[in-house]
């Protein structure tokens, strides 16, 4: 299992503009596996990404939008991407402005689906 998780991170990290990717425990907000460039604060990204997903999922539930599958947050300094891999995991990626969002999303959703099986 850990080999599969590592290979998925490797594929995601090959997308141009990626600064790092990680598997995060959805409930705990703790990193499970990570592949990060130097200087990326893994623990903080994991904790805050899990918190963001909880809040977005709560909002989606409140407005009747159903289950959240992917979260994309664009900021001036970069982009945070999160794919949900129910029941326990999140695929989290941090990218700069050059990233091909479509390709990153495709790789992340593929990894999330494989982990959910």
């Amino acid at each position, binding site marked *: 299992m850990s080999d599969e998780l590592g290979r998925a991170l490797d594929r995601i990290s090959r997308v141009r503009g990626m600064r790092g990717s990680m598997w995060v425990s959805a*409930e*705990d*907000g*703790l990193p499970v596996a990570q592949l990060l460039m130097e200087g990326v604060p893994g*623990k903080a990204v994991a*904790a*805050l990404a*899990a*918190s963001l997903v*909880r809040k977005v999922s709560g909002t989606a539930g409140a407005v009747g939008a159903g289950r959240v599958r992917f979260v994309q947050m664009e900021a001036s300094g970069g982009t945070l991407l999160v794919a949900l891999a129910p029941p326990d995991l999140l695929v989290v990626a941090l990218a700069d402005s050059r990233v091909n969002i479509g390709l990153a999303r495709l790789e992340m959703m593929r990894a999330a689906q494989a982990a959910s099986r």
Partner: protein
Amino acid sequence: MSTTVVERWAEQPLLRYVTESSARLVVVMTPAGQVLAQHGFARAVDLMAASALGAAIMAASGALAEQIGERTFGALFHAGGRHGIHLASCATPRGTLIVLTVFGKETSIGLVELFYEEFAVALRRAAPAEQLREPVLAADFEADLNRSLSTLFHQR
């Protein structure tokens, strides 16, 4: 939820930690179980029990760490059904302090750990140097304890 402190310097770091981590209950205490600050406790008896048990767990885990050749455990985490408990110690100029945090489903251990690290740094910065203390006498102990509880619970 109320936050009360025996030692004023601990108030701002504690308020910030509680706000950021969304913790339900927090106790800052010495390894002997003397409470310096608390958040969320409504009754003195609950606070006394939590601080005594927290200090005992840290002492027991420290002894266990020594048995296996570790200096000490960094932090202890217990995941319950509805609540999680995070227990950790940090070295400050005031001496070693123990922080017990109880949190619910509205936050996570990842967030609590993240903001605990900032809290520990803030405590280290704010804490005054430890004063030379008189040995604790049985006669003074109860008076000290009552004084702390009166301060924390406004003589309720």
